[in-house]
């Protein structure tokens, strides 16, 4: 276990480039690269030693390479102050990064058919996943969507890695007009998918999960709840998730996730404390017997 624990390091920036409408930064981070498994993420301190921004920013790992002992690439859109600062980095600057963090995507033992569904930059973690699945002989199909064509991430790579790659844009500027869920059902049927892996905004994860349930295949969803530390100590990133025992708990998406079985996430209750969650106001410890077993939210 101790070999898998995250490392904190001051990583030199190797390259900064644009990928579609995203910024891509590659850092030299051997410790992170060697431990990484797909679905894990890194958390970066932004603004330097005298920064007024104290909270780390979480980013999915988009690529890992063996060069220089191990490099890690992440992609991001400028969203607020921290990503604006990151976008100004140049090669040789140092970034204080921690990783790899979180639980990885569970990989199937057998060479099954996998469909990978990403929204916007949420596609990033699906690329190392696709490679890992391919190494296990799995069939990989991609469904990638975004608001517009410039925000669809990695179309070329998707085509290269996957059996099929379907694209959706809300404005119809690329691929199918609509949302990923408008195309996903067909892909699942055509590819006879056995499992869905997905990452993107919460409403998309909910729809993808619903579709998985309808097709009776499991969904592995990578959630991005607002995070402050990434290491499990701040309790900010909680999501209501139903456990194997049927009890809903407010679990930390940074250490207990970010990957969860989609069916176990209580999407409709995200942003609330469900009344029946462990320790919710009015909640009382119950014996196993009088607690109704439930498998999905």
């Amino acid at each position: 276990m101790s070999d898998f624990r995250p490392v904190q390091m001051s990583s030199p920036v190797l390259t900064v480039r644009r990928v579609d409408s995203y910024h891509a930064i590659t850092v030299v981070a051997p410790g992170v690269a060697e431990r990484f498994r797909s679905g894990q993420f890194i958390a970066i301190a932004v603004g330097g030693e005298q920064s007024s921004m104290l909270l780390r920013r979480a980013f999915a790992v988009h690529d890992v390479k063996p060069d220089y002992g191990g490099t890690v690439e992440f992609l991001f859109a400028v969203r607020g102050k921290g990503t604006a600062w990151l976008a100004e980095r140049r090669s040789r600057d140092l970034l204080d990064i921690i990783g790899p963090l979180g639980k990885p995507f569970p990989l199937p033992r057998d060479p099954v058919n996998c469909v990978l569904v990403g929204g916007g930059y949420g596609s990033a973690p699906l690329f190392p996943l696709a490679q890992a699945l391919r190494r296990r002989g799995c069939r990989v199909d991609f469904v990638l969507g975004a608001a517009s064509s410039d925000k669809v991430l990695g179309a070329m790579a998707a085509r290269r890695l996957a059996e099929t790659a379907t694209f959706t844009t809300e404005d119809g500027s690329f691929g199918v007009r609509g949302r990923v869920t408008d195309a996903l059902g067909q892909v699942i049927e055509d590819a006879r998918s056995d499992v869905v892996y997905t990452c993107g905004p919460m409403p998309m994860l909910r729809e993808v999960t619903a579709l998985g349930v309808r097709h009776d295949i499991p969904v592995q969803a990578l959630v991005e709840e607002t995070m402050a530390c990434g290491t499990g100590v701040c309790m900010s990133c909680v999501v209501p998730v139903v456990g194997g025992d049927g009890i809903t708990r407010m679990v930390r998406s940074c250490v207990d996730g970010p990957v969860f079985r989609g069916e176990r996430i209580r999407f409709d209750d995200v942003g609330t404390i469900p009344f029946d969650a462990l320790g919710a106001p009015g909640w009382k410890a119950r014996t196993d017997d009088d607690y109704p077993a439930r498998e999905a939210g």
Partner: protein
Amino acid sequence: MTPDLRVRLGDIELANPIMTAAGCAGSGRELAQFFDIARIGALVTKSVMVEPRAGRPAPRVAETPSGMLSAVGFQGPGIEVFLQRDLPWLLSRGGRAVVSVAGGSPQEYAELARRLSDASGVTMIEVNLSSPNLAERGRHFAHDAGAAARVVNAVRAKTRSDIPVFAKLSPDVPDLVALAQECVAAGADGLSMVNTVRGMAIDPVTMRPAVAGGVGGLSGPAIRPIAIACVYEVHAALPKVPLIGMGGVRTGSDALEFVLAGASAVAVGTVIFNDPSACVRILREFEQALVDRGVGRAADLVGAAHRPPGPRHDDDHRGRPRGEGR
């Protein structure tokens, strides 16, 4: 020569003055991935309550300039699981355990104290008074000196005599020194200061309060000057009462600031989120600061800023000692 970093907090001694702040280090398990938790003075646990608690809805935190707002709402597993799972783990790693407790009534606090006293290995109990008093429509105990004193009294009565009880105060109270005096009169062996400061942020995109529930607690370097003023004032009024100082400690020099103001030990909170290795880094920097100043014992600096100005201060008036390095 390595300085002597040992400090006393009432009847106990810590190997060094650097601790974690309650609620910012879990029970040590996560941070142990980054450093040996036996190296710091003590680990203060997240406030534990009698029952499991789900806490407040997300979003629970928002970043603010040099600080953060939080409203976690005491999410935790309850004392039962804490005693079975978290405390033994911490002790097995050689950590010194300061257990923070929170409740809705003096009785709940007392029950926690009793159960912690029955367990073995608890170094100290920190009484978090910024918890809603169920009998008073949720007003914090810290906002009512009488209620705070009743809680401290109940905890002290149920706590084994060799375990010191520290009361943790919040800075936004009508009269901090009076509250501190009440707590000490009620049996507190020392005081921890400060808890978070009441604050709020509006998300300019959603145009709604940034943390669910509106008001949150402000922490981090932003509040350090507020915390320093509290420690300084309480130390001036109660120079014999040991204090644990906290609020925005980011560097060894910040920790030194708290010691000079009157704290015997210093806790690191929010900055751990920025730097999980912060406690050991700060310990190293603090030790170096003593070496740089030729100070042999950390304990000698406690409250040093209160001493009458010496010749050094005089120098300061004539243009700070900034000529030194020229």
